[in-house]
């Protein structure tokens, strides 16, 4: 009997100690993923978190080629379509005369060119949620790098100064994304670093208020950013902030109803005075070693075939154009997708590229006229983006399979600044001169004409319409076109028609509501504070 009692006691004691031990096991944490305090314990950790704020422009997620997306698959099922650049580019280009995409069954494609999109369109929702992802990441970074956190975590001297610079850059990246949202969706919900995570319903901000916010942010961070041309390659400096301000002011009337051309000119001048010059060869602007073009590039999205792999970005821009052989694009081949409308090709003196070298059209087997919107041979194609170095060799980190590209994407470059300057002067801005504007434009044209003055224009030729066309020639496929056409009131109106605008081969005007994209239905249903844009 005693023996049994003893046995029972031992059993009970063992059991009780196992119980308590086990309950502790209810507090489990992941092995590889770490908490904020662990990430931000070192200056390197800060830099790696900052790398996400930047890298979100280039990549689809945390795994090269896909597998760990930033944007939920419920928004975009195919991760390769979910990076910032491809989404933004598609909305800025596929809706215009510059580009059409062949594969109509790809989610969200049908309706873009035809100007009949709805609030459920996955490309529209994709860009919206991509921008908000980047804003939320920046907010987090800004929160984690406020002065008290920096001192709490014991950073001093150089480290503290560097982290503050990171913080200013994160504010720049956030301002850029808000500019995108303002341009595309007019009045998105607004959250800054003070907004809570995992709770709350953000309120919409009016387009004009958002304009003021972006302007004030860019001005506020200017002193904290690195001087122009002094930061590491790929990171924003003062010139990047000026360039965004210049773009913001140029379009101010669209956003606020008030022209701000004088301010646009002032910011262009700051950039020009900082020592940027045009890169001598236009065709080297969008190739594998364009990171060498520090003379002209102001701010780029960086890609590398070995280190920054994804199916969007410049991989898309090099593979996407229909029919272009891999031997020309420096890739494994083309995806048969992107073509130009004939109206866009006609902006150039001829399609050969022998006159204006900016014309980089692939015409073999292609019909110039886009008789059918969804046929890969209708419309000339483009080889503007080529994954080759200026010597024609593969990039040092080139992908042996020819999938990924090394081409950096110029988000801001001097060419655009010259065009902003000229347009702002033409629109009545002060502080610059028409003569200077003409000089800048002719510098662009001389480069385009391979150093020849044959393409130069005279003062009388420098009109607003010329500027729009010149922007088309200089900046096509660099994600500017929709914004430009809206500023010139040619996006939805009958004043400029291109093939398949409005859904017909000859083109036709569309409802002016299409100047602004709809707030995605998904967000409307999850946030009762939101009001849909007019007409959707």
């Amino acid at each position: 009997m005693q023996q049994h009692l003893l046995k029972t006691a031992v059993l009970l004691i063992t059991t009780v100690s196992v119980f308590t031990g086990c309950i502790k096991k209810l507090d489990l944490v992941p092995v590889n993923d770490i908490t904020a305090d662990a990430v931000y314990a070192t200056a390197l950790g800060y830099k790696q978190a900052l790398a996400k704020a930047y890298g979100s422009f280039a990549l689809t997620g945390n795994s090269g080629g896909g597998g760990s997306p930033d944007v939920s698959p419920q928004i975009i099922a195919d991760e390769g379509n979910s990076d910032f650049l491809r989404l933004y580019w598609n909305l800025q280009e596929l809706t215009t005369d510059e580009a059409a995409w062949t594969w109509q069954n790809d989610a969200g494609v049908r309706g873009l060119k035809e100007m009949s999109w709805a609030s459920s369109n996955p490309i529209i929702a994709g860009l919206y949620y991509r921008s908000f992802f980047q804003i939320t990441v920046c907010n987090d970074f800004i929160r984690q790098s406020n002065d008290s956190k920096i001192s709490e975590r014991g950073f001093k001297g150089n480290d503290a100064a560097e982290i503050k610079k990171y913080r200013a850059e994160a504010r720049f990246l956030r301002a850029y994304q808000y500019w995108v949202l303002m341009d595309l969706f007019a009045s998105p919900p607004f959250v800054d670093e003070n907004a809570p995570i995992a709770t709350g319903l953000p309120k919409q901000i009016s387009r004009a208020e958002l304009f003021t916010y972006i302007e004030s942010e860019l001005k506020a961070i200017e002193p904290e950013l690195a001087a122009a041309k002094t930061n590491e390659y790929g990171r924003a400096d003062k010139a990047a902030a000026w360039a965004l301000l210049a773009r913001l002011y140029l379009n101010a009337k669209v956003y606020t109803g008030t022209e701000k051309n004088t301010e646009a000119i002032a910011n262009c001048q700051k950039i020009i005075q900082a020592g940027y010059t045009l890169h001598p060869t236009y065709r080297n602007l969008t190739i594998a070693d364009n990171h060498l073009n520090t003379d002209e590039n102001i701010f780029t999205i960086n890609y590398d075939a070995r280190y920054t792999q994804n199916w969007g970005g410049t991989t898309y821009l090099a593979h996407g154009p229909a029919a272009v052989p891999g031997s020309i694009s420096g890739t494994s081949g083309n995806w048969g997708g992107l073509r130009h409308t004939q109206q866009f090709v006609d902006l150039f003196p001829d399609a050969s590229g022998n006159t204006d070298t900016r014309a980089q059209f692939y015409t073999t087997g292609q019909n110039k006229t886009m008789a059918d919107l969804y046929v890969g041979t209708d419309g000339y194609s483009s080889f503007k983006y080529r994954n080759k170095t200026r010597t024609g060799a593969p990039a040092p980190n080139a992908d042996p399979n020819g999938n990924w590209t090394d081409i950096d994407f110029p988000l801001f470059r001097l060419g655009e600044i010259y065009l902003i300057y000229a347009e702002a002067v033409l629109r009545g801005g002060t502080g610059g001169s028409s003569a200077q504007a003409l000089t800048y434009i002719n510098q662009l044209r001389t480069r385009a004409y391979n150093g020849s003055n044959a393409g130069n224009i005279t003062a009388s030729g420098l009109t607003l319409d010329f500027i729009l066309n010149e922007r088309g020639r200089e900046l096509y496929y660099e994600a500017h076109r929709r914004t430009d056409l809206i500023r010139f009131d040619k996006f939805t109106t009958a004043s400029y028609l291109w093939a398949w605008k409005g859904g017909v081969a000859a083109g036709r005007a569309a409802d002016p509501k299409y100047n602004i994209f709809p707030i995605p239905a998904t967000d409307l249903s999850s946030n009762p504070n939101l009001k849909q844009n007019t007409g959707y």
Partner: protein
Amino acid sequence: MKLKKRLGRYGLVILLLLVNQLIFAQARTVTGKVTDGTGNPLAGVTVAVKGKQNATTTATDGGFSLSNINTGDVVVFSSVGYNTIEQTVGAGSSLSIALVTAAGNLNEVVVVGYGSTRKRDLTGSVATVSSKDFQKGQISTPEQMIAGKLPGVSVISNGGQPGSGSTIRIRGGSSIRASNDPLIVIDGVPLAAGGISGAGNPLSFINPNDIESFTVLKDASAAAIYGTRASNGVILITTKKGTGGKLRMNFSTSVSASTVANKVDVLSADEFREIVNAKGTLAQRAMLGTANTDWQDEIYQTVLATDNNLTISGGLKKLPYRVSFGYTNQNGVLRTDNLQRTSIVLALNPSFFNNHLKVDLNIKGSAQQTRFANTGAIGGAISFDPTQPVYSEEYDNRFGGYYEWRSAATATGLVNLVGRNPLGLLNQTVNRSNPYRSIGNLQLDYKFHFLPELRANLNMGYDVSEGRGTTFVSDSAASAYAPGGVGGENNKYRQQRTNTVFDFYLNYNKLFSKIKSRVDVTAGYSYNNFLATNYFYASYNAQGVKYPNSDPAFAFDKPENTLVSFFGRLNYTYNDKYLLTATLRRDGSSRFAGDNKWGMFPSVAFAWKVMDEKFLTTSKVFSDLKLRIGYGVTGQQDGINNYDFLSFYGLSSPNATYQFGNEYYQMYRPGAYNPNIKWEETTTANIGLDYGFYNNRITGSIDVYHKKTTDLLNSIPQPAGTNFSAFFIANVGSMENKGVEFNINTEPVKSSTWNWDAGFNVTFNKNEITNLTVVPKDATYRGIQAGGIAGGIGGGFSQIQQVGYSRNTFNLYQQVYDKDGKPLENVFVDVNEDGIINQDDLTKTKSAVPDLFMGFSTNVSYKRFSAGFVLRSSIGNYVYNNVYSNAGNQLQILGNYVLYNASANYLETKFNGNSNNLLSDYYIQNASFLRMDNLTFGYDAGSILRKKATLRLNASVQNVFVLTKYKGLDPEVSSGVDNNLYPRPRIFTLGLNLNF
């Protein structure tokens, strides 16, 4: 002659007993032996004296000894699955009894959570299938054996791949986004959700031959003892145990042939040529080949499978044991698919200290050698150009000699982004896996010496598995061809899972005769830990050279979760007629934080054995009648991630870095989180009636239930700017399942030569989503899209989860038809009459979930011959035919770089495809069906080899026929979207079973 002799012997015994009684009317010890009907000893039989505290159980040799017995005492012999026998003690001191298998199984002991009970004492909705009623034939995964056998339980195989799993739904499933899979417990070891790398179906490791019974706990009062894991019901699997007694061996072997029963209807080469010549461009016409290839014939094959099992059981002195070995080798009807499984199972069931300590040791081990076919070939075979040959000598037999689409413009010589030769995909991909799994437990059940009513039960179990394998794609394979050669793939994968379980409970069970009450109380503790280790590897080319910078961010990850539970159960029986069961479980989960960590799950049930009331005991019609009423709350925490409650930063892989200066930085991404996440909760009310007529020749039950799930774990859109992901998991919404289950089992003919039994069950279930939004019933909320459609990139969705509708309700445009009933392409009903066809015109129609499903099984035997079949039917389930919609249009043929074959549906619709046709409700088809799962014949050869052995021969056909209106390959598609299903084969099996 014999009879006379026996009578004589019995007469002598009776006489002696009488004499004994007269002479020795005093307390004494009685010994004896209990055997089964065939003379084998029965261990573990309870031998008790009626009205006294005097009881024991039989030892392995069937023997027992009872002291303090008086003449006239009534000794009760009871055991699992046998009729209880009461024997009055006569004058002798020896009692030997043969127990007879129980009819109607009412005395059958049923395993319930943390214990067992007699079937007649059940208060909840519990259903059991034992081995004699299993589906027969070549079955590679155990759950298939109960398909169609139980009301309320739907088992749909995920396709015809050897070892592939099934979708099991008990009473419709209780969730939308979290898991709808029931909890499966094998011999007291709860399995973790999900499979392992290289073996997607966890049950495929269990040799079906080793399973004794399946018990399904359907309502909350039965399942609530499993707390947060019980919302989708619980399946308890019990494996066969050692029997004790003399050595017995069983050998069974079978050989099967599997054939493809049905192919997808595509255009023939000639039809295809005609269309391309009529409608294609010059370039496309030039692409046409001269062959007539049926690609489906090329990739499918008729194959053989073998299955062998050897079981040895008996008792080594006092140690009952069972050892079984199994080896099965099964080929898939898709070429290159192969599954070999070797399994060993050991069960030891000794008792010590005069049966006070019972020990149950079960160890199961199983190793598989698998080659997975590249199932991409299934879709490939439907769409690859039928005018092209299988092989081509062009390009000097590059690409393994297979015909491929070639291009002079690419560095590889192949057209980019087009389908590759289906046979090449199969033969040039070698995905081999060698997963193993071992499940074991040691259960100690100790009946206290000083208080025999009290038992302590300790169960320690483990479930360890490892999956590892290699995917090799030949360097010459077109699917992974690199410019200049040395592409291909040679990638490893590996995963380990270690799950541990520790349960301890005390059970007090006592009959208080004076107040006619039996009290049975259980209180316990359970600890479950689920730890996985996932290994990550770089990518390698076919020669084993690493692709540059393909290293993963981490070498491995160890996701883990723990569940700690306290549970209690009270069974109170009054007068053996009124039964009350109450359970309570408190669960702590590592998946939740703060106040949400712990949850409480109660249940209560009441049963009334109407049959035992006086007014029925004498009935000649009724032989059983019991009313059950139950209510309870269960939880659900499966199907979500382990660490969603807190924000963690994840590091990007080395090929997803960002360049600053000349350095590339791996990025830290903040993860989305929800600090308030908790389990979803299901309350179930159940009313049931068990009945039996004519001495239980007719038995069955009817159950009516109502399940309501609240706080649904759902992936919902986060207001933009408020989280690090657009969608994240949160507890929002509610859903209901209402249903009726009915089953009837009959034995219309029962004689010494003819026997016929039949069973039928039917389940009606109505599922309805009742809320999905934070602000309840927000009418502006469009619902959650589901049922992804293949076609284009991220083609779209065919279904929606919306308030007021069943889960997976189709949500598509209403097709407009011409006067001949032909669909008009891209003409849809403008439901809101606003002049445009957009998302507002999508219409919710049918659902992929059936209204009712049925099963019918029957067996007939005449002398040594027997035959039986199983029918299964499902009514009111619809399927979106994605093969028709994606491949049934002209764009499929002519709208790509190269030519693709189309579904024969193109000939009916003549759709161009340049439209929204993917979203047409034309493609929703009625997939109600009647399927004969199984047709079996058996012949009992009886004793052979000079009566040293018995032999049984059997033959069966599986998947005999399907009657359906559905026009695709197979109407059974649990997701409701039919896209390139692995065809379920028709299987012919011959087998023999030898006992010696």
